[in-house]
């Protein structure tokens, strides 16, 4: 596993730059902290892009998987990054079931390792990432395909992938109660880990504050 060679996919350079930018400005508080802590050099956006463009050897195998996806779905797939062993793509919520079905049947990823929802109050949306892996195909066993989608954080609704990957059942249920994303077609969107009398907002939303150390 080599360290830190992000490499942009050739045909989506514009998209990539915009995503990097949007990832940079996450929350106002955190950005302020980065500015005040001036002892260590602040990693700037342009620097990060430069590092990426210096890297010339693209991971061939991962590019192959991505090219297949782009060929099938075209513009609806945004490629966030292609690193060795790691791919991340973003699709709009309306296409996610279709893309997931293609990934399962054609690309060979057969189970979900984790489903994590992240709250971004700055951009006003919630990102849900499915980390998909493969047990059946030998050459995919080390790969993780991160399939992500974004939804509005005030009315967070997404189609559930339970018809495609049975293994997301408890993970999606956990995301529902921790971040408050409602999954359509999921059999049980209810309490799982929190106490039965929990009457607060979902705890992993950013406006839920704990005391902290």
């Amino acid at each position, binding site marked *: 596993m080599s360290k830190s060679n992000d490499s942009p996919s050739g045909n989506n350079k514009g998209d990539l730059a915009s995503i990097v930018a949007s990832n940079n400005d996450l929350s106002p508080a955190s950005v302020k902290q980065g500015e005040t802590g001036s002892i260590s050099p602040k990693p700037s956006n342009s620097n990060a892009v430069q590092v990426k463009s210096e890297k010339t050897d693209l991971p061939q195998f991962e590019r192959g998987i991505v090219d297949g996806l782009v060929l099938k779905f075209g513009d609806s797939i945004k490629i966030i990054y292609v690193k060795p062993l790691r791919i991340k793509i973003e699709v709009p919520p309306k296409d996610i079931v279709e893309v997931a079905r293609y990934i399962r049947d054609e690309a060979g990823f057969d189970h979900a390792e984790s489903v994590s929802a992240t709250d971004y109050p700055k951009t006003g949306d919630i990102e849900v990432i499915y980390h998909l892996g493969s047990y059946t195909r030998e050459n995919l066993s080390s790969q993780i395909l991160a399939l992500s989608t974004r939804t509005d954080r005030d009315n967070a609704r997404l189609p559930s992938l339970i018809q495609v990957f049975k293994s997301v059942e408890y993970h999606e249920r956990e995301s529902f109660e921790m971040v408050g994303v409602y999954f359509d077609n999921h059999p049980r969107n209810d309490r799982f880990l*929190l106490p*039965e009398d929990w009457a607060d907002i979902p705890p992993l939303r950013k406006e839920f504050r704990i005391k902290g150390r």
Partner: protein
Amino acid sequence: MIKDLVNPTNFNLMVSKLGDILVKALDKPLGYAINWGRVWSLWPVHLETACCSVEFGAASGPRYDVERFGIIEAFGSLRQCDLVVVQGTVTRKMAPRLRMVYDQMPEPKYVIAMGACAITGGLYIDSYNVLPGVDGIIPVDVYVPGCPPRPETLIQGTMLLQEKIKRSKIK
């Protein structure tokens, strides 16, 4: 006075007075015997609340072997238990269950709070789902600090509890 008591109408009174005298006379030896029995057969409830249960399991193992100090391995029904070892963090979901278990146990019952989380909330004091110490919901007899406490510490804590039982009066 004795003449007053020895007649059929005051018989009940006499029996109760005699009972008092008997209890006063036998309190010391009888209490000692009963407490001795309690000290050497403490039955802990099989209720694990968090990760300290690993060290509790190790304490029941062959190297530390708490059975030689009179603590039987956690088995059986809670109706015959008289000791709750709160093994670590008590979350908000577990707290009503812990209280329910404590209420269902017969008297006398003792509580050991094991680990920093059970005493004050410990490492998780700022978490949204953790109680800051169990003494808010059940009365605690002995606090055993550590995160997690070593089995030796747990044994010392139970010996302190035994000292307490030995000194306590029976009802």
